């Protein structure tokens, strides 16, 4: 039993970190109706910038601040150069633009900072804590707590502030929102800036766990089942989806892995997501799109 609990808790903790990446997608999806393919590149870019500065001996907090500034600058540039000229174009056009953007960001980040694997030490001790018979990784706990605090802060910010009202207004009816004076451009800059901040935190946590390297862009692939299960338009959905994916992945690995020859966790969540697509295509908390006739 304690083994089950241990696996389950470990899965949930990993799940919070999936939620963190998924929230970046939800914000941008709500504001501009596009699946931002460049989210993974932003995570890589943030992680790489931070670790490069740390390697050169720059103070932890200063490096964080500079990286954040760079991420916000990228957000503003993306809005000006990529999104603004594409206003009112079909969603697929915007999606292709973010696909292109991902190559640009990855390319520039690697030209500037190299493609080697960097080790990132956040100063978190990784000795397991024992509670009763259950062992939990201390790093996972701290990472999950950080992600959890961020997730809660973002939900509060986007549920209770005017920015949140504006975001939900744009998501519900963009034309009406603009007609009452909500500036789409400003909102996009804010949302991309926040997504940049989320990328920074995700880049640090994931980077510390598996090294800052090109593979960081692949966290996007883990966010996809999270979004399909939770729904593309809901922050709550991203949290719940992340927990489901994390827990089911690690449980499946343990209990199905031996039967199916291992590495079940690499594909299990996608099978789960396909199941959700069949039963509940909008996800647990997503909205069914309504076409006006």
């Amino acid at each position, binding site marked *: 039993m304690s083994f089950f609990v241990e696996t389950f808790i470990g899965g949930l903790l990993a799940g919070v970190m999936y939620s963190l990446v998924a929230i970046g997608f939800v914000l941008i999806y709500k504001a501009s109706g596009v699946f931002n393919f460049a989210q993974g590149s932003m995570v890589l870019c943030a992680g790489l910038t931070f670790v490069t500065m740390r390697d050169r001996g720059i103070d932890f907090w200063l490096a964080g601040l500079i990286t954040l500034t760079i991420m916000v600058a990228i957000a503003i540039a993306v809005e000006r150069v990529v999104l603004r000229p594409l206003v009112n174009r079909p969603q697929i056009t915007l999606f292709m633009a973010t696909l292109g953007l991902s190559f640009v960001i990855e390319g520039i980040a690697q030209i500037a900072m190299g493609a080697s694997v960097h080790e990132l030490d956040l100063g978190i001790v990784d000795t397991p804590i024992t509670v009763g018979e259950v062992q939990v990784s201390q790093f996972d706990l701290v990472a999950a707590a950080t992600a959890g605090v961020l997730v809660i802060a973002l939900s509060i*910010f986007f549920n209770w*502030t*005017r*920015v949140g*009202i*504006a975001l*939900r*207004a744009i*998501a*519900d*009816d963009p*034309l*009406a*929102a*603009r*007609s*009452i*004076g*909500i*500036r*789409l451009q400003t909102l996009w800059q*804010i949302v991309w800036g926040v997504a940049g901040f989320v990328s920074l935190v995700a880049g640090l946590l994931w980077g510390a766990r598996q090294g800052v390297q090109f593979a960081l862009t692949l966290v996007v692939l883990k966010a996809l089942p999270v979004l399909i299960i939770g729904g593309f338009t809901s922050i709550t959905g991203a949290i719940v989806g992340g927990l489901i994916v994390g827990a089911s992945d690690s449980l499946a690995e343990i209990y199905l892995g031996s039967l199916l020859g291992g590495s079940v966790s690499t594909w299990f969540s996608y099978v789960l997501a396909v199941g959700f697509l069949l039963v509940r295509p909008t996800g647990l908390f997503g*909205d069914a799109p309504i076409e*006006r006739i």
Partner: protein
Amino acid sequence: MAEPILQLRDVSLSFKGIKALNALSFDVERGEICALIGPNGAGKSSLLNIINGVYRADSGSVSFDGERFVRIRPARAAHLGIGRTFQHNALFRHLSVLDNVLAGLIRHSRTTLIEHAFGLGRDRSETRAFGRRADEIIGFLDLARHRDRVVSTLPYGVQKRVDLARALVGRPSLLLLDEPMAGMNQDEKREMSSFVLEANRSFRTTVVLIEHDMSVVMGLSHHVVVLDYGRKVGDGTPEEVRRNPDVIAAYLGTVH
């Protein structure tokens, strides 16, 4: 006499070769209620869409409050003081009535993002003031009972009032109403008329509205502009328009 708040000069618009508006010119005086009438497809909604920047006129110009433009963006129009409602309720359907109304105040916010996120500086007093103004309008339009309901759960007639509240809360100097009484019964129409009249009187809001019910138009407006196939066929007081032979022809067909 003061300068008209809205002046349209030779405004034309076509969609793929079909002329929706043909060299249209008229003035709207400050403080009046101006009704746009005409058969379906006469170009009334297109005209509102040009005034608040949803469409761009092919030629001609619009002057609002002394500022002349050919092309304006909807958000900019709102910031200048042009409010509007929509023919098909374009409300934020997942938001409560209060949040819909608060959304109408966002453009008046003067606090920075950082102040707002952390509740610093002017933010608290601004948030309080916004809450007060929203509640004022909600009370004014008799929506207090529905204040915290999600709008998609409300009956159609109430949604129309929420749309008006959202437009009115920002105190626009010009309010464009696209069929505010469509699909309403006589009682609801009477109620809506009195709200429009009251807004016009107490807030000194100039109103341009599209309406099909002639008894409503005649009772409510100071000024009536009649459109037919994108041309202006009548422009004057309700009395003048009622007697205008071109208007009668447009509405009832010519006697052959």
